[in-house]
């Protein structure tokens, strides 16, 4: 087990602040279906950064921030301009702009690296492990410069989102209406993009220009799967971001040691953790998660198999002379051509006391008989209606009726009965059971 020092605390705090600052704005990129814009801007700020280095010769936060903001605005305008004038889609125009600017930035950095202390890999991947070395004295405390920058950025973004909450909401949801109301959707778009650029730069030192994309997009995307309320989504994304930073650092210093390796990059692990959190949400989210959908589908499938079993038992009881051996599980599996679903449905029906197990077979209970009668009534009413009123007769009438019987309640049965002119028998001359 690694030892936890104040160093680690500051790494986590810095990571949390930068991740949260990114995630907050990232929500709006996700909602505006402009996730690629985060990608574009975080890459495109590179030349701004390089130019700021070359011009001032320092790595100070202020020139970097100014450079990033300027280039961020330029990027947003260029993308919008190419999108409007060329007829390319937004994704393609972003692709053209950000790769070109990124490449330009790389060239400039290689040139600048000869003159100033600047490491391209630092820009790409960040150096969060080194951030606690560079401190400010704030109110008697030594606070890492990166924590101050990112904290300020988070605070600023929070103020922006709170102050313009309804404007951001309406311009994201319905920019046309916003414009007619006099809320300038274009202006707000550029302000948002500028802030994304600034936030990206602030987060550069901690997570680098590539991993910052994960911080921008993934927490918001995960939060959107969990809620239908914008405010809750913003809050959840902040929680995910903070959690990813914490788990990322803890993971980076512990997980590799389990396998006998040295600790690994915290920034990398933070991005991995956002991915892991997203995967968990994607699988287990109550409404939009994969698991809940699978469960819902399985429930529906079981209900249908259960209905079929009740129908079979009802028909069997209707035809069989007294004293005939009851149907056993194998008969159901053969008739329905399914194995495990039938077993599970039989178990479910027994538990509900709709069928009862007797020696080598199953029979309907009173309640099961009522349920089975309902299903057969639906089936035969549908057959009568489909044949009598819609011209679906004889050979092909069974299948549609078989599908519809599972979704027909008593009210619909009685309407159907009227619509089919109250038939006593279905097209195969079998009695339609009365309503119970």
């Amino acid at each position, binding site marked *: 087990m690694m030892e936890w020092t104040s160093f680690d605390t500051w790494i986590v705090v810095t990571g949390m602040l930068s991740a949260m600052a990114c995630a907050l704005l990232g929500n709006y990129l996700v909602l505006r279906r402009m996730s690629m814009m985060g990608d574009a801007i975080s890459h495109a700020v590179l030349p701004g950064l390089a130019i700021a280095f070359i011009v001032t010769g320092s790595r100070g936060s202020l020139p970097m921030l100014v450079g990033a903001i300027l280039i961020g605005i330029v990027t947003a305008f260029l993308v919008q301009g190419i999108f409007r004038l060329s007829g390319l889609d937004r994704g393609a125009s972003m692709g053209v702009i950000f790769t070109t600017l990124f490449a330009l930035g790389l060239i400039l950095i290689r040139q600048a690296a000869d003159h100033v202390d600047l490491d391209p890999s630092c820009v790409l991947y960040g150096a969060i492990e080194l951030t606690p070395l560079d401190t400010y004295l704030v109110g008697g405390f030594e606070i890492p410069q990166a924590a101050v920058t990112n904290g300020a950025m988070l605070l600023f973004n929070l103020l922006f989102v709170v102050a313009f909450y309804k404007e951001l909401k309406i311009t994201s949801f319905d920019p*046309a*209406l916003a414009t007619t109301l*006099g809320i300038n959707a274009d202006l707000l778009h550029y302000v948002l993009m500028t802030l994304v650029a600034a936030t990206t730069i602030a987060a550069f030192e901690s997570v680098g220009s590539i991993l910052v994309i994960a911080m921008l997009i993934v927490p918001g995307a995960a939060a*959107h799967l969990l809620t239908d309320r914008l405010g809750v989504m913003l809050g959840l994304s902040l929680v995910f971001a903070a959690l990813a930073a914490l788990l990322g650092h803890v993971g980076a210093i512990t997980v590799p040691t389990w396998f006998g390796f040295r600790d690994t990059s915290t920034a990398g692990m933070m991005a991995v953790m956002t991915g892991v959190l997203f995967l968990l949400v994607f699988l287990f989210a109550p409404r939009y998660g994969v698991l809940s959908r699978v469960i819902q589908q399985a429930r529906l499938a079981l209900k249908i198999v259960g209905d079929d079993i009740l129908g079979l038992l009802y028909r069997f009881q209707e035809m069989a002379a007294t004293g005939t051996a009851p149907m056993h599980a194998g008969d159901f599996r053969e008739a329905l051509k399914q194995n495990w679903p039938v077993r599970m449905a039989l178990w479910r029906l027994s538990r509900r006391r709709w069928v009862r197990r007797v020696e080598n077979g199953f029979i309907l209970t009173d309640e099961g008989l009522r349920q089975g009668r309902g299903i057969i009534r639906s089936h035969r009413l549908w057959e009568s209606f489909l044949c009598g009123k819609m011209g679906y007769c004889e050979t092909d009438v069974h299948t549609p009726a078989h599908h519809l019987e599972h979704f027909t309640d008593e009210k619909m049965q009685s309407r159907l009965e009227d619509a089919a002119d109250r038939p006593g028998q279905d097209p195969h001359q079998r009695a339609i059971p009365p309503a119970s």
Partner: protein
Amino acid sequence: MAAQAQANRQSSSARVHALTEDQRRRLPLAIQDLTVAYHRKPVLWDVDLAIPEGRLIAVVGPNGAGKSTLIKAALGLIPRASGRVTIYGQPYEKQRRLVGYVPQRESVDWDFPVNALDVVAMGLYGRIGWFRPVARAHRRRALEELEKVGMAPYAQRQISQLSGGQQQRVFLARALAQDADLYFMDEPFAGVDVATERAIIALLKELKAAGKTCVVVHHDLQTVPTYFDHVVLLNMRVVEAGPVDTVFTEENLKKTYGGKLTLLSQALFEYSKDPRLPSGTRGGGAL
């Protein structure tokens, strides 16, 4: 007949040009020489229109005739190549409060994390102003508007869980919240259920009774005479505009739709002229 229609068109165009500022102030919408182009391809060409107050006006025309473009250009959502648009005598920018807008349902992302009440409250944003949150009073007002379209029970529903017709009614409630004098509606009847269609018609009648003006992009020729008093026949240019009784003729429709007026739509048109149909909102009055 054709010569007369031509004269009609010229006179209607001349009328917009000859409007005094005083007359303009009384017109909810006056459009003069409006031309709109996408990528140098003209979509609307020399449109002249004077929309009278307190009427329900249908804008009809074939696909690509520029119906939505007309509305968007009037609202300043797309740049115009030329032309002058006035709302009660003033440019749109000065009259925002007087105008309500119902965009096409497909124009927004229905998965957005908001409920029906939030969407309706958006109609109040112009009034609430910058830096001020949506207060309880605003929410109450939004709920009242939802009630008017029979959607109050769904106020807390996330909007993707509403049916198409219900979504349309939420949009209408939002427009009502704007409390405007002139409403632009882009295909509000497209793909809605019967209950919603009835709700929209009832609403249009109420708005008309309250002296409001509604300009509605409409695609169903059959219902034009029953739902609307005025009609604008559009196909890049204004083919004809005026009261349904005089303008909505087979000849004018043929001119508007060209070869595209199929046998089916002709049949529907004949049906729409059936005197047994309820006269509905059909109203008189000259343009």
